[in-house]
């Protein structure tokens, strides 16, 4: 198969030394195996995620994503824009839709972009990495590259919110998307059937501002994974990953639970199954170590 | 048809019957016990060859009573359809081999079942006659339409298009009814965004241009006699002249009366000129004709209007209507648009508890209203205070607070009261109203009713079609889609149930189609739903009749009048052929040609009753052919087993069950009797309204009889069975078998 090329929008959290830098690491390893080339959008900026609304009005926020799209059009002409972060994908896709629908906003956005010497055509597809895997690579091809099947690991596929709503993945339902379970199966592991909190909210950015309320949500997400017999949780979203992994000690302290469950990305699973070592798979980025994956990676 | 009875019995060996049963033995049973003149077997009786074999015997051997021993009477009806002969079906497949295990030690009782069913079918054949239409009436294509509103006019136009001449009898001086009083109507066409012209002028023009439609204005029906195919209607004008015309069928489209808003004192309707009904707003809108709508009190242009939904309806309060009138939410949206379309700055608020916008475009219309800026507030109005500007007090149900709003105009969405004529005597006597209860004691005393009759039917049971919930002349949807309880009379529009103009016109179309088919059926002497095309009809032996009148009272369809000398007078085409009259008759003089005291009574006598010591009890099931019998068939299709001691006889309705069948079967040694009818009561599922209820009442009295015979009353039980009870029915049978095992065999075995 020919190399697949995409215009890549990595987003703030995957930068070096940032909270999901390990996500980027494993994505790179995974893409390496699947012969996917990611061309980073030069000089990309923050999308403002879904929490920038206080200071940023509609137009400034749209301008942020518009700048990224315009840069992609300029430097990676004709390539689909791919994001790995749920919020990045959502904000960019949302911008594309809204500007498509509203000529007035499009005009104003272009006036703003002109200040940075840019112009927007807005005709590239905006996609999540998960879509690339499902639609361009396919489960069969994904399975072919498995060198070390993740036998004996039971995994709760936690899809979360923003990879799932409001856009979601083509062909999947909002209430019970199945693709993450299929990823898990394809890598040789066992998905938790009927994982109750598959698409529940972890609190998102409110984990910072409303820690107690968010941790109550996170507690339920982890509890349901344990109830389903999970050894670990896997997710496609950096915010989900961080929120579900890093607060386990605090939740234990407050609720008397004994949570200690690793939370990784789908790309972590895939890198390990594809025979990459622990570092290449981003396993050193785990605060709660994914011991089963480490063992397989070390084999 | 030859006078001599010649039974031909035909036994099928297909579907496993040949493997499971001793067919030779069955053949012997048919000829020896059943007295069949001819008996033949066939590997595949419903095949062309099998059917031809039977037809040949009919044509060449003079067979006039055909007995098919094969599958259920509900199966292969297309194949087993022969002219000018009676047909009896011994149900060996669903009734025997599919409900019994294929095991050697069960073979004997299984074969006994099959033998009995063959005997029973032959016995039935012996007592059946080929039904012939009475010839009471010919085809009369004229359709009478009571009411000249949009429902009546639509019915007339539709029937006329199909070639059936119509006469519209309209009480007022003009066609158009309530819809003619509307400035505009709720939209009927995509995109369902704006009010539409009321369309009445076009309808009237079409009616007037149609030479097939006669319009009688300022006229009422002062007497309607006869039956489908031969209705005789007296059409009387305001001035008093009467013309009598005959009709094949009737559509009653008598519409509704608006609810009397004077009862809504809490909303200051009587005090304030600026509190009006929806109907009154239409008049204001017509007067404004697209200009600003002015309020009645001082002619001020309305800047702020509040619509109060469910005013005096959907409420159990004294004097309020219990039902939802269905059209008023959309009507308020439409009326709010009268204001918004003229001036978008006018504040329009619809105060609702549940917004209901039925119909294809309802939701679109609601959205359109929201887009136009109509404010929808979920709340309950508690009071309208009369002042220069009315003040609406309401409880906001979302914000949970009490609110007062001063507005220029208040519009009350009051509901529909059906114009359905007088309640029947039975309806009145069922009511718990004291006056009427007192009246009931005096039985024959005339009941005074304030409501004017619409049809003035010359029926013993009442002047109008029976009413259902909330006084609407509705049908029972499950059992009579589009039908009323008076054959050949179809209600349409808001007299049937609350509805808007679109629904009323659709309804009228349906009613017209039903009227046409009934006019045709009646002319041929064929029954209407559910025994469609049945030619049999009840007749009675006058010499045995005691003139007790039970048949006339119990007929659910008002089919039986009384002759001048006190005998029942059967109107064949009003009859649905349920047999309730036959079950009611204490002296057993009523019968149908193909369904009588004997066709069932001889079947149960034909069952071979083993003596007490053989320990083979016999249970008789009389099962309603509409629900219980199909449920039994379906249980068989699912191979659910039940006791081999069961013998099932289908009946037209439990209402047709004669007490003589019960006493006869007890006397002949049956150990248990199960009557299976449809659910009764308010949500009845009886195709004949009250057959199962009536049967239960009658069976209530059987207990005493049993006791006098020293028999346990558990031996006779009545059950309510729905067609879907396929797991329940076999269980009930097996429970009955167990009961008999406990209480022991009947002592009446000889």
């Amino acid at each position: 198969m020919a190399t697949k090329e995409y215009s890549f929008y990595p987003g703030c959290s995957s930068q070096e030394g940032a909270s999901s830098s390990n996500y980027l690491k494993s994505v790179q390893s995974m893409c390496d195996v699947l012969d996917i080339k990611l061309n980073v959008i030069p000089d990309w900026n923050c999308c403002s995620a879904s929490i920038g609304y206080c200071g940023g009005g509609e137009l400034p926020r749209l301008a942020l994503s518009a700048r990224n799209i315009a840069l992609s059009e300029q430097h990676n002409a004709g390539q689909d824009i791919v994001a790995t972060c749920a919020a990045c994908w959502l904000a960019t896709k949302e911008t594309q839709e809204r500007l498509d629908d509203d000529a007035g906003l499009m005009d104003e956005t272009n006036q703003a972009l002109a200040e940075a010497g840019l112009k927007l055509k807005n005709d590239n597809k905006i996609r999540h990495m998960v879509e690339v895997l499902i639609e361009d690579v396919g489960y069969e091809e994904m399975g072919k590259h498995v060198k070390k099947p993740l036998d004996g690991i039971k995994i709760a596929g936690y899809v979360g919110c923003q990879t799932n709503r409001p856009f979601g993945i083509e062909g999947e339902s909002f209430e019970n998307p199945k693709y993450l379970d299929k990823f898990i199966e394809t890598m040789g592991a066992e998905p938790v059937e009927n994982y109750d909190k598959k698409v529940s909210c972890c609190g998102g950015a409110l984990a910072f501002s409303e820690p107690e309320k968010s941790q109550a949500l996170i507690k339920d997400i982890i509890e349901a994974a344990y109830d389903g017999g999970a050894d670990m949780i896997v997710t496609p979203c950096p915010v989900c990953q961080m929120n579900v992994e890093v607060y386990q000690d605090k939740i234990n302290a407050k609720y008397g639970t004994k949570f200690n469950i690793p939370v990784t990305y789908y790309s972590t699973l895939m890198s390990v199954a594809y025979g990459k070592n622990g570092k290449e798979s981003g396993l050193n980025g785990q605060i709660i170590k994914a011991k089963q994956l480490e063992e397989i990676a070390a084999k | 048809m030859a006078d001599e009875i010649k039974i031909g019995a035909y036994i099928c060996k297909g579907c496993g019957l040949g493997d499971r049963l001793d067919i030779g033995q069955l053949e012997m049973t048919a000829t020896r016990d059943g007295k069949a003149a001819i008996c033949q077997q066939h590997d595949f009786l419903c095949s062309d060859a099998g059917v031809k074999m039977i037809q040949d015997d009919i044509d060449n051997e003079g067979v006039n009573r055909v007995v098919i021993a094969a599958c259920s009477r509900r199966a292969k009806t297309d194949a087993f359809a022969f002219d000018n002969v009676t047909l009896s079906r011994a149900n060996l497949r669903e009734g025997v081999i599919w409900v019994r295990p294929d095991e050697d030690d069960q073979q004997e009782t299984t074969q006994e079942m099959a033998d009995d069913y063959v005997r029973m079918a032959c016995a039935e054949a012996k007592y059946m006659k080929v039904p012939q239409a009475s010839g009471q009436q010919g085809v009369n294509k004229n359709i009478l339409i009571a009411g000249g509103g949009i429902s009546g006019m639509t019915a007339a136009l539709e029937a006329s298009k199909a070639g059936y001449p119509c006469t519209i009898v309209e009480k007022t001086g003009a066609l158009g009814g309530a819809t003619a009083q509307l400035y505009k109507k709720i939209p009927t066409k995509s995109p369902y965004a704006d009010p539409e012209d009321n369309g009445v002028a076009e309808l009237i023009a079409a009616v007037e241009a149609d030479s097939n439609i006669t319009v009688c204005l300022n006229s009422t029906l002062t007497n309607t006699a006869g039956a489908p195919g031969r209705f005789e209607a007296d059409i009387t004008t305001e001035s008093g002249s009467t013309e009598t015309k005959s009709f094949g069928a009737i559509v009653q489209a008598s519409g509704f009366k608006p609810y009397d808003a004077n009862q809504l004192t809490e909303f200051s309707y009587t005090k304030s000129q600026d509190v009006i009904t929806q109907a009154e707003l239409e008049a204001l809108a017509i007067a404004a004709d697209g200009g600003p709508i002015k309020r009645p009190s001082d002619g001020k242009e309305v800047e702020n209007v509040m619509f109060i939904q469910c005013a005096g309806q959907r409420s159990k309060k004294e004097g309020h209507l219990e039902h939802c009138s269905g059209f008023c939410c959309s009507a308020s949206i439409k009326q709010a648009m009268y204001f918004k379309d003229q001036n978008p700055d006018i504040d329009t608020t619809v105060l609702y508890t549940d917004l209901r916008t039925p119909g294809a475009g309802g939701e679109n219309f609601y959205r359109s209203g929201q887009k136009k800026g109509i404010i929808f507030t979920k709340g309950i109005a508690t009071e309208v205070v009369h002042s220069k500007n009315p003040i609406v007090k309401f409880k906001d149900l979302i914000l949970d607070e009490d609110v007062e709003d001063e507005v220029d105009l208040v519009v009350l969405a009051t509901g529909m009261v059906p114009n359905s004529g007088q309640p029947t005597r039975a309806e009145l006597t069922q009511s718990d109203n004291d006056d009427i209860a007192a009246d009931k004691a005096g039985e024959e005393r005339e009941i005074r009713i304030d409501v004017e009759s619409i049809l003035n039917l010359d029926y013993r049971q009442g002047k109008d079609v029976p009413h259902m919930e909330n006084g609407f002349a509705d049908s029972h949807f499950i059992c009579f889609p589009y039908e009323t309880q008076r054959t050949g009379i179809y209600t349409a529009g808001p007299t049937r149930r609350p509805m808007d103009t679109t629904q009323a016109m659709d309804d009228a179309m349906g009613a017209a189609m039903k009227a046409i088919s009934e006019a045709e059926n009646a002319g041929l002497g064929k029954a209407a739903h559910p025994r469609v095309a049945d030619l049999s009809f009840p007749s009675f032996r006058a010499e045995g009749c005691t003139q007790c009148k039970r048949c006339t009272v119990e007929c659910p369809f008002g089919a039986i009048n009384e002759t001048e000398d006190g005998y029942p007078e059967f109107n064949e085409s009003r009859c649905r052929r349920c047999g309730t009259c036959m079950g009611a008759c204490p002296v057993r003089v009523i019968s149908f040609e193909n369904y009588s005291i004997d066709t069932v009574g001889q079947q149960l006598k034909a069952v071979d009753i083993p003596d007490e010591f053989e320990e083979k009890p016999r249970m008789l099931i009389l099962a309603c052919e509409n629900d219980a019998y199909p449920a039994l068939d379906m249980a068989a299709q699912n191979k659910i087993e039940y006791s081999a001691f069961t013998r099932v006889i289908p009946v037209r309705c439990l209402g047709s069950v004669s007490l003589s069948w019960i006493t006869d079967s007890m006397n002949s040694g049956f150990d248990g009797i199960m009557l299976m009818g449809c659910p009764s009561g308010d949500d009845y599922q009886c195709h004949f309204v009250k057959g199962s209820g009536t049967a239960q009442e009658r069976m209530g009295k059987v207990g005493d009889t049993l006791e006098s015979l020293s028999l346990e009353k558990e031996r006779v039980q009545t059950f309510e069975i729905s067609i879907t009870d396929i797991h329940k029915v076999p269980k009930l049978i097996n429970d009955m078998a167990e009961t008999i095992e406990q209480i022991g065999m009947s002592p009446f075995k000889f």
Partner: protein
Amino acid sequence: MSDLNTGMVEKYRNNFLKEVEANVEEGDWVKMCMQCGVCSGSCPLGPHWDHPPQELFMMIRAGKRDEVLQSTSMWMCTSCYNCIVRCPRELPITHIMHGLAHYATRLGIEPKGQPTRQFAQLFWDNLAKNGRVNELWLGVNLYFMNGFVEGIKVAMGMAGIGLGMLKSGRLSLKELIGGHTVKDKKGFKAMIKKAQELEAARVDGSN
């Protein structure tokens, strides 16, 4: 109260719905709510809202301007988008909530001490400065947003997490001095400024 707020009160008088339609992101949709309450029932933090979305929509129609704009409710939105995908009328509820929060902020009448409102402002300031988010500064600012003493307490409480992040290479002290940024800062800032100007002209007619 800001001049803008006074101006808006004056301009729309008692028609708050019109004000929302004209000035709030996706505010045009508010009138289309049919009060089914699915949004309220679908919200992960539903019980913590003083007025769930359904109620806010009704309050807007009822003209309860101050109660709506000063409410902490919109700031409870976690942006999970459950309400959007479940709304039978397809209202973009999440965006309307963001829009209401932003409009209140623009008018200067938002609940200033509300933690999410503070965090959201920090987030914007952080990204607007360099074009990319500096997670370390975002965290530091967050912990100290309620003053120094409170900040030390919060920071101590969160130290375990910060340490874990540092150890796993997912938080870098490099960010304290410099850190990630867009290269074309000038162009980026000019673009934001222009967008803000255009929007302000549309909303309050100023600039």
